[in-house]
């Protein structure tokens, strides 16, 4: 089980970048590409900034392009959460 849940990620996304009216984040979105959820490159950068600042998980510049779906982000966070977090 991930220490950082999909629901928490959705909340973070909503705060970071809002939600497009045509998108239902409560649906099955785990494997939906972020672009399909209405998020652009700036939204992903904002999300990465929050993950780094709020969770203490460093994200190298060249990794952001691999954060393509909520699942990819959760797996990355899960494997990089600082000890004890």
């Amino acid at each position: 089980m991930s220490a950082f849940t999909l629901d928490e990620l959705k909340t973070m996304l909503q705060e970071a970048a809002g939600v497009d009216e045509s998108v239902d984040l409560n649906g099955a979105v785990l494997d939906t590409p972020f672009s399909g959820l209405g998020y652009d490159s700036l939204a992903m950068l904002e999300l990465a900034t929050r993950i780094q600042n709020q969770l203490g998980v460093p994200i190298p510049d060249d990794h952001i392009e691999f954060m393509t779906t909520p699942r990819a982000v959760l797996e990355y966070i899960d494997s990089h959460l600082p000890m004890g977090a």
Partner: protein
Amino acid sequence: MSESRERQSTDGGRARAVFTGIGVVAPNGKGTEDWWAATLAGKSGIDTVRSFDARSYPSQLAGEIKGFDPGKRLSARIVVETSRMSHFALAATRMALDDATVDLSQIPEYELGVITANASGGAEFGQRELQKLWRGGPKDVSPYMSIAWFYAATTGQISIGHGMRGPCGVMVSEQAGGLDALGQARRVVRDGTRLVVTGGSDSSLSPAGFVSQLPTANLTTVNDPARAYLPFDTDASGFVPGEGGAILVLENADTARERGVDRPYGELAGYAATFDPRPGSGRPPTLTRCARAALADARMRPEDIDVVFADGHGTAEKDRQESRTLAELFGPRAVPVTVPKTTTGRLYAGAGALDTAGALLALRDQVVPPTIHVKNPVAAYELDLVIDQPRETVLRTAMVIARGHGGFNAVAIVRLAD
């Protein structure tokens, strides 16, 4: 391109430009008709600052837009990446395009332009990110800062939001900018653009933005909302800052008619801009020359003007200058003069656009909106100031004056379209 288009109504061979849509977000009304009704009723939006604690500052009033929820009017995705100044303009753009009843998909994308004015950027957004930077370091600064606070943010977002890919631009000349944007919008219409979203908005009402204005000594320190901003009054003590503005749709008169616009609000018949000499230079201010140039541009004489929407700075020196210009042009008490911004405070880049919206609605309804709170107009100014009550009269043309800090003057003339 423009060469191929047939032109019936031209002005010396140049395309005429008419206003076909209005959108307003102002301290005394969100939405054009709400604002217009409030303006005619003399309802003020000036009050003690609520969005932050101004009690330690010598000036404590502002024309704030209260109860404006950008999430109700704009996509949540857009709200997070834009500042308050853009929220107002983007909401007003939707209103203006709805009002113009235009289907933008029917117009070639490169013949749709966006020209807005802005004076001070996204002050609140900027202050928040500056605070993050200096408290936490560069890693705390939001990626959105790079697109939210700068002066061109609004024009860019309007262009993107509505697929408008023709000439886009941004005018910055402080309070004169709202009219300079209209002037530039008319230029691009003359160059072949069919429809331009234009106007201006500002929101400098964060603590840092507000405090930045104090050193000019132009803000009144009278903190009674009914006695604070009194242009042309013997008790004039400065002005009250406000936020918001107006967005207007300006179109080529022929293509507007072709798409079925029977009665545009009016034509942008004249426009001119000048700059005042440096204080202490001994040279006279240039507002009179600016107004004359706008009249010449419109091929009108002073007696053709039916009402003047004055700049109404609210400081004795600027009021004197403006009243002298009006007296020189029109003679004593020869034309109704009004300052509806007494209900909103000065909106900077939003002001020229909002006053033009007011002028167009005055032409529509044949009524001059009032100047409020002024009790003792300076007799020597010899102005026919429309005070407290709207005045019904026959109106075909209106002159709008906007003056920007540092010396910017702009004058626009609108008239009922033929």
